[in-house]
């Protein structure tokens, strides 16, 4: 729901020419990397079948580098393609990947978890003004009105730590943080109200596991929730099992989730999953001063023990 565009202000955030320029630079860089043999493949975006859409693309031939694009429709977190969906790609040699700030955080997290190695990657950072929210009319330019909720409070628009960064953003307007506001609304509720809120939301879950499949951090070979000996989580979409699944998902991502909100985008039932992610991220920050994916930290807060850890939660 939060990823859904907010329908009011339609002033374009960046000029169309910005995307054209970034796309050009991207193609040149990709062609160079492939033809010079620096990388064996470039993971990026290409135009989708419907006008104004874009989808993931893996380019291995320098001649086809001109298929790559960058626009506000480039919603996917491509880090995913380095873990499970196209795992084979990672085995072919050094790979270039187009990364927005939020994607880069996922890459850093995956490095910390031994899933990818920095030296195997050539990261092409793209300065990003935000992506479309779901339901946005793709014919219109990106504006505060059709921007994804997560992008309204993005702090990593210009990615850091990439091998190259393409594009320089114009100053962007301060936007009201709708996700933070929604979180505040939930936090103000009584526990019973909050429970009811989530129960209602999770009741809709059909256990398609789209959230899991699209998450770069859900890279387990076999998900705990698919196990049957012993069965940890009921597999049919019934309330108890749904609740258990979503608690497991939130807990397993705590301190790791990079905030790309792909789970929420992929969810066909519009469950506000990123709210949970954000809540966990905030707890981690408050308790341990940890923010996921800013740098590849060797040990995240949940796998480390320190004598002076805050233990006030033990009551």
């Amino acid at each position, binding site marked *: 729901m939060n990823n859904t565009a907010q329908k009011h202000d339609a002033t374009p955030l960046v000029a169309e020419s910005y995307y054209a320029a970034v796309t050009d630079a991207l193609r040149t860089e990709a062609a160079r990397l492939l033809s010079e043999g620096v990388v064996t493949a470039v993971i990026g975006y290409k135009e989708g079948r419907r006008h104004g859409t874009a989808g993931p693309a893996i380019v291995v031939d320098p001649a086809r580098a001109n298929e790559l694009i960058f626009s506000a429709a480039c919603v996917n977190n491509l880090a995913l393609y380095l873990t499970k969906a196209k795992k084979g790609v990672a*085995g072919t040699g050094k790979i270039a990947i187009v990364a927005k700030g939020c994607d880069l955080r996922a890459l850093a997290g995956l490095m910390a978890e*031994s899933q990818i190695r920095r030296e195997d990657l050539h990261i092409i950072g793209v300065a990003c003004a935000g992506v479309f929210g779901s339901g946005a009319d793709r014919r219109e330019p990106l504006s505060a009105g059709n921007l994804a909720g997560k992008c309204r409070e993005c702090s990593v628009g210009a990615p850091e730590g990439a091998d190259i960064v393409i594009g320089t953003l114009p100053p962007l307007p301060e936007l009201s943080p709708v996700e933070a506001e929604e979180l505040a609304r939930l936090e103000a509720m009584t526990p019973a109200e909050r429970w009811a809120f989530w129960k209602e939301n999770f009741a809709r879950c059909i256990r398609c596991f789209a959230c899991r499949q699209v998450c770069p951090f859900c890279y387990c*070979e*076999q998900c705990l929730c698919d196990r049957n*000996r*012993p069965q940890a989580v009921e597999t049919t979409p019934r309330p108890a099992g749904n609740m258990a699944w979503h608690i497991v998902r939130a807990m397993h991502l705590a301190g790791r989730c990079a905030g790309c909100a792909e789970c929420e985008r992929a969810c066909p039932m519009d469950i506000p999953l990123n709210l949970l992610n954000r809540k966990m991220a905030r707890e981690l920050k408050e308790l341990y001063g940890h923010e996921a994916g800013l740098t590849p930290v060797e040990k*995240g807060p949940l796998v480390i*023990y320190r004598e002076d850890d805050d233990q006030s939660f033990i009551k």
Partner: protein
Amino acid sequence: MSRIGVFICHCGENISRTVDVERVAQVTARLPGVAIALDYKYMCSDPGQNLLKKAVAEHKLDGVVVAACSPRMHEKTFRNAARAAGLNPFLCEMANIREHCSWVHEDREEATAKAIDIVKFTVSRVKKDRALAPITVPITKRALVIGGGIAGIQAALDIADAGHQVVLVEREPSIGGHMAQLSETFPTLDCSQCIMTPKMVDVANHPNIKLYTWSEIEEVSGYIGNFQVTVRRKARSVDEDKCTGCGVCMAKCPQKKIDNAFDRNLGTRPAIYVPFPQAVPNTPVIDRDNCTRFKTGKCGVCEKVCGPGAIDYGQQDQLIVEPVGAIVVASGFDLYNIGPKPADSPYEGYGEFGYGAIPDVIDGLTFERLASASGPTGGKILRPSDGKEPKQVVFIQCVGSRAREKGISYCSKICCMYTAKHTMLYKHKIHDGQAYVFFMDARTPGKNYDEFWRRAVEEEEAVYIRGMVSRLYQKGDKVVVMGSDVLVGVQVEIEADLVVLATAVQARTGADLLAQKLGISYDRYNFYSEAHAKLKPVECATAGIYLAGACQGPKDIPDTVSQASAAAAKVMTLFAKDQLEREPIVARVNERNCAGCLACKKVCPYGAVEEKEIRDRNGNLIKTVAYVNPGVCGGCGTCQATCPSKSVELDGYTDEQIMAMIEAL
């Protein structure tokens, strides 16, 4: 279908008093998969164990549940019985119906119902137990001894005499510890140096002992039988191989006015020094903080006078890795500081005794140096302020000890004895002097100890005043001691020439840091904890690490030496085998499922998790997974709790077993 035998113990009346054991047997006999259930008065006795063995054979049991005491008590006993009957010992589990049930409940009905539940879920667990084979790991038959006081010396000599290599690490430039500072020792009054130095020399000459002085423990990794210890050899600035110990450098060093800590700062020493003349090794060290050459770049006299050219100003700290199989910790003690309270000290300090500001108020160890023939006064008892012979000396016991309000509640154990010794030494040297002792009780258990104390009182005329001292203050050249005599019920005031405080024995400053490196536990006073107060007094809870001497708690020399020899015996027992057998309760990784996130590696407190590459037939890397080294794994289960995909599990405690146990309820 499983064939499980359930054996329920009465534990005399310990269990049967609150639990209806016959009923537990009747009910559990009917559980699916249970072939037989019976109860007996003492399952752990010979007839009890025979019942178990007979049943295994007669009923062809494939699993055994012994419902009795804690597994910590008798798991081994019953597993051995199961093994003797031909069953894999790890198919035998304990259901604890004593500590977890009969001892903590009163209601017989409820306790019986709970005992039945406990047996029930243990049956479910046993059904999913796997037969396990013990793990064997090779033993590195070399020992590390930390600390070269009498404890470390004794342990090192014993182990070395048994034919094993010993690495002895001492922080100071010489071994010897506190005992080297003592004058004469109770209860026999033999000269400490005279009985100590031969042992020190033995250490230096022993072919099996590698001595690192002026060195510290930097890092410890590994586990019983296979530790890797990194030793930091601090730069001595003198080449030990070249130095002949002639001592010219020390004689010629122009910087001679440095407080001599060995003499409790009563005398001075040069910047290049050995702490005392009988030091082992006899190689000096340059105190870089006080050496003119290091401070200003000028001087360099020692280099010029050293015949063999042993001086090396450029020496650096060296890190050396020593593989050892066992560790004896013998790092000794410190004394309660009578000076101002250090900022980070948990202890109160003694404001009423002037916080160490009165020069003629000293501690017992300083008195030892005054009374020692090799001390700063050549064995003459002269007071620090003006070097006069003190004619009235007041000894105050229990300074810091047994003083809960000051932060220490324990008794330091040695002070009653050494104070009695001090009064004697004093009387022997100053015949017309008078010693007074303020004491709470005289605690003198030990062979010939009470006789020794009585001698001080009855023959050597020390005046013992039972009571406390409330204040000390300087008056002219006297120290006024204000105290009370509780037996007579009067206030006492003595104008003393010298006051000696028997200060509390404390753990070493920094003892906790060493413990953290070793992974051993310590009590709230930072004394190291033994594994069992009565039955394992020299073992640490961490396998392969043993304790000797005052680092474990206040001790005199006889106790220290006994414990050191006991620790050495434990090490020798360990080294008597070539392979170490370990319980196979270790974690195993399901390599098919493992995603290689290595979260387990990050949390494992034993460092047991390694990375393992899985390759196809052509050698192409398929993936990297976690691998648990069974020799290192401590079986704590932390990895199991952490693994997001549940790909690592502890044998005997798999998720499937735990779930089955829950479901049985």
